[in-house]
């Protein structure tokens, strides 16, 4: 092996070289920078350990390399080829080390690479000078050690090819086979990597200058394939070297080297002469053969992924069967699902890139093949975790949505396969549920229409298998999708199906589900259901009524917690419907079984509001009863309106006990009642009497006073046929006055001062209101009396000063004045009032 040609392999020779420049060594003296060939066995497989030592060796190696490089360049400068080669060989000897890890070896390699580049540039010109390239090619083979010899050979080979003095294919073939001489994995990989790098631009590709009759693309392909095969073998061999306990470390190191192997595939990917036929018939089968046969999971996973990433998507489509066929043959421990997902993702993007490619997919039956492949993989890997299987189906679903969006049956098929996979697995782990949510969300995003998702028969089945929490998450996703797209769900059936899907939000699924839910979250959740109810709509009143009934049925299963959120939106939907049909009522004369009549709807409304009593939320229920009463009023359904008022009054009397709540409720009652025109005298009187009664019985006197004078409006309605009972208005105002007086006296007794005159000013304003409206019972005298009362009170010593009251009185006086200034009838009326 060690050829003893003069000067090339004897290390001592270096020191006989008289140099004009003194080279200073930083670390060790020259002799120790060379690795003694006796000590280092070629093929020694010890993988270095000890980081610190490695640093030292690396530094030593670099130093030795640099030193020899320096001499090499000096020799080149004086055109001394023999010496140059000698030094370059010595320089390359540093690469014979077994002491470095791949990462460090790479550093050493890169420096050598740089020097070799310069050498190559030199030789390019050299061939124009002294010896021919063929001679040079011969000469370098005299290097003592095989590794330097082969590096030099590749370098010169590169120049040789470029010179075109021999067919490229011959030289390439020679080189790729000579490299067999290095069987050490690490060194071999780098050597062949070097070969790949220098030969890159010299492959006889189509359109390349190296192409000719003798050199064809096939030769280029052969060369790269062979290099690839050998490199893979070396790479796989690394796995089995060394003790078992260092397996992890080896795998890590192998990972660092994987791109060296993958590079060959990249080169193949860029050979233009490889058309679909060549790829399908030669390249892919050969590569797959190597992948399958090497039986190494690290290599298989990486290389499969590489193939998918490197070669064009059209090729993958056309060779789908071959590619997928390799999958079951791989080692069981290979993460094939990630590979398949990667493939499907690429194909999805390819489909998305242009609609013209879509027919191809149909033609090669891509979906069927992928579906089958996935099925086989899942079957083969029986212990694949659920989330893995779901992830695979998820990728397939994304693919299908891109490629065959109109094929709902495909989508449904995938969901069905998922169902059978997750059935019977009990509670699924978080990763799996996350995947399932992603799976279910994909069709929603794609179709932007819950309708389409509802058509998938397996969709609800998949949701069945979700646990409560996940069901809620998914339900929220569905609602968000509907809200975002502003889809109006328009039939009762669809509504029913939808509410079945989101039942996690509608009711408690698990009987003994403890209240883990945060209150705010719960509110938000129910509010989103409420918003959803707003999105249910159909122009046809019959269908709309059916929708309302369907929703009602579902929300009633929600229990007391949910009703306060879900009932109101339903009520309003129904009230809107009433409005729509009430105007139609005028035109409708047919007595058909049209069930969407106001009466029918009011019945449903009544029953629905009643359910709130089980919560209970009397304030809310009261408001809803009053809204319904007004709607019934507009339909002229007196008994219905009366019934609603009755219910509201009962709630007021029996359930609403908080003073503040009573005040608000009472104003709502008074306000609503004031607008009722459908009541006959009796009913109206009963309700009014009660309302004034409630007003007088409020807890705080000021509240009483205000409510009572508000009741005065119940006797005065501005409409044409509205009641205008001046006397009873006055009675109310007088009653309010009495209460205000009583309040004053109470303040005198309890606080020592006479309290605020505010109430009197308010009542004064009410007097003025009715005076202006023409209530004959309101006399100027009574107004005058009030003005004086207020003035006296305000000037009195015992009164507490109240700037608000002062301002109010002032603005009231201004009002009277402005009325006087109006002139005409109004001016005359107000003229009598003295301010």
């Amino acid at each position, binding site marked *: 092996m060690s050829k003893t040609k003069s000067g090339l392999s004897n290390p001592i020779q270096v020191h006989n070289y008289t140099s004009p420049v003194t080279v200073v060594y930083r670390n060790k003296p020259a002799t120790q920078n060379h690795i003694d060939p006796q000590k280092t066995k070629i093929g020694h497989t010890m993988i270095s350990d000890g980081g610190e030592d490695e640093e030292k060796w690396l530094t030593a190696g670099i130093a030795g390399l640099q030193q020899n490089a320096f001499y090499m360049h000096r020799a080149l400068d004086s055109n001394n080829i023999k010496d140059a080669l000698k030094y370059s060989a010595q320089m390359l000897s540093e690469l014979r080390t077994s002491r470095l890890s791949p990462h460090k070896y790479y550093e050493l390699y890169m420096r050598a690479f740089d020097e070799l580049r310069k050498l190559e540039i030199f030789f390019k010109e050299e061939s124009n000078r002294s010896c021919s390239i063929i001679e040079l090619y011969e000469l370098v083979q005299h290097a003592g050690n095989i590794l330097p010899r082969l590096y030099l050979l590749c370098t010169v080979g590169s120049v040789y090819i470029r010179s075109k003095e021999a067919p490229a294919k011959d030289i390439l073939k020679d080189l790729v086979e000579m490299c067999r001489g290095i069987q050490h994995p690490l060194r071999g990989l780098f050597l062949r990597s070097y070969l790949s790098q220098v030969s890159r631009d010299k492959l006889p590709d189509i359109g390349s200058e190296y192409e000719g009759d003798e050199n064809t693309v096939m030769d280029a392909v052969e060369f790269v394939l062979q290099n690839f095969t050998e490199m893979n073998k070396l790479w796989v061999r690394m796995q089995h070297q060394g003790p078992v306990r260092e397996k992890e470390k080896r795998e890590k190191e192998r990972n660092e080297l994987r791109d060296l192997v993958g590079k060959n595939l990249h080169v193949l990917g860029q050979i233009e002469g490889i058309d679909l036929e060549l790829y399908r018939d030669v390249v892919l089968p050969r590569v797959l053969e190597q992948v399958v046969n090497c039986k190494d999971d690290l290599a298989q996973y990486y290389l499969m992924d590489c193939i998918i990433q490197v070669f064009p998507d059209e090729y993958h489509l056309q060779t789908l069967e071959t590619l997928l066929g390799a999958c079951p043959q791989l080692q069981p421990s290979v993460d094939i699902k990630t590979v398949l997902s990667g493939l499907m993702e690429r194909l999805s993007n390819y489909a998305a890139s242009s609609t013209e490619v879509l027919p191809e997919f149909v033609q090669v039956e891509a979906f069927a093949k992928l579906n089958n492949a996935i099925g086989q993989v899942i079957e083969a890997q029986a212990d694949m975790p659920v989330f893995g299987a779901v992830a695979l189906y998820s990728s397939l679903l994304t693919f299908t949505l891109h490629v065959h969006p109109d094929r709902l049956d495909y989508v449904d098929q995938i969901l069905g396969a998922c169902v059978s996979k997750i059935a019977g697995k009990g509670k699924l782990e978080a990763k799996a549920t996350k995947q399932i949510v992603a799976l279910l969300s994909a069709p929603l995003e794609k179709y932007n229409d819950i309708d389409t998702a509802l058509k998938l028969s397996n969709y609800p089945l998949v949701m069945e298998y979700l646990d409560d929490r996940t069901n809620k998450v998914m339900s929220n996703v569905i609602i968000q999708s509907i*809200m975002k797209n502003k889809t109006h769900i328009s039939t009762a059936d669809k509504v029913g199906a939808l509410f079945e899907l989101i039942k996690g939000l509608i009711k408690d699924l698990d009987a003994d589900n403890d209240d883990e839910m945060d209150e705010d979250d719960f*509110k*938000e959740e129910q*509010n*989103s259901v*409420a*918003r*959803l109810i*707003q*999105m249910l709509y159909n122009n046809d009143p019959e269908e709309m009524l059916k929708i309302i009934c369907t929703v009602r049925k579902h929300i009633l299963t929600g229990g007391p917690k949910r009703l306060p959120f879900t009932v*109101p*939106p339903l009520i*309003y939907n129904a*009230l*809107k419907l009433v*409005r729509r049909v009430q105007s139609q009522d005028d035109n409708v004369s047919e007595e058909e079984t049209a069930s969407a009549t106001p009466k029918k709807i009011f019945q449903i409304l009544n029953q629905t509001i009643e359910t709130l009593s089980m919560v209970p939320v009397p304030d809310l229920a009261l*408001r809803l009863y009053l*809204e319904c009463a*007004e*709607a019934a009023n*507009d339909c002229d359904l007196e008994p219905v309106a009366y019934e609603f008022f009755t219910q509201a009054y009962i709630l007021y009397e029996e359930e609403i006990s908080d003073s503040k709540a009573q005040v*608000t409720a009472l*104003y*709502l009652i*008074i*306000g*609503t009642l*004031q*607008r009722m025109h459908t009541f006959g005298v009796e009913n109206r009187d009963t309700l009014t009497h009660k309302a004034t009664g409630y007003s007088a019985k409020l807890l705080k006197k000021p509240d009483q006073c205000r409510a009572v004078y*508000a009741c005065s*409006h119940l006797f005065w*309605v*501005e409409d044409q046929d509205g009641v205008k009972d001046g006397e009873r208005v006055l009675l109310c105002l007088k009653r309010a006055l009495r209460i205000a007086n009583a309040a004053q006296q109470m303040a005198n007794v309890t606080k020592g001062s006479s309290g605020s005159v505010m109430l009197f*000013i*308010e009542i004064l*304003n*009410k007097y003025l*209101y009715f005076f*202006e*409206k023409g209530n004959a019972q309101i006399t100027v005298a009574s107004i005058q009396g009030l003005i004086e009362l207020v003035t006296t009170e305000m000037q009195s010593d015992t009164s507490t000063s109240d700037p*608000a009251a002062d*301002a*109010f009185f*002032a*603005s*009231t006086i*201004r*009002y009277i004045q*402005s009325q006087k200034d109006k002139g005409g009838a109004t001016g005359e009326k107000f003229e009598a009032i003295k301010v």
Partner: protein
Amino acid sequence: MVLVLAIGDLHVPHRAPDLPAKFKSMLVPGKIQHIICTGNLCIKEVHDYLKSLCPSLHITRGEYDEDSRYPETKTLTIGQFKLGLCHGHQVVPWGDLDSLAMLQRQLDVDILVSGHTHQFKAYKHEAGVVINPGSATGAYSSITYDVNPSFVLMDIDGLRVVVYVYELIDGEVKVDKIDFKKTSTATI
């Protein structure tokens, strides 16, 4: 030049799912100095949304509001104008101008903003201006039929206020404006 947004009666989520998209895109944070809200939002999310548009947020209580701590009435001074705010369900008869005028005198304000009827109104009345911004979501009202979503933007500049009303009619936003001038610094 002070921009004041008057808005209310959204009734989310009982009567409407959300503010109309066209309104949402118009209402951006940082442009408005004050928001006065008549009430009936009804939920915290709407409150937070309004707060995000402008930190100076004034709300009075509507009968359906979730938060019972909002006051029944509120007064504030902006520039030369005194503004009063009240939901309006407390003022009987509902929507009656003269009764609202009484409230205006009671609060001693130049501009009274109230809601409840879901019907946009803005005019001079007796001693002041009464504005009802309507319902920003077009929510159902037992009082008003065919409610169009609307809100009001007031531009207060010295003694002058320009009232812009934005209404969503058949999917298009229509704007109208009304001018008011105060004659002196006392009252309008």
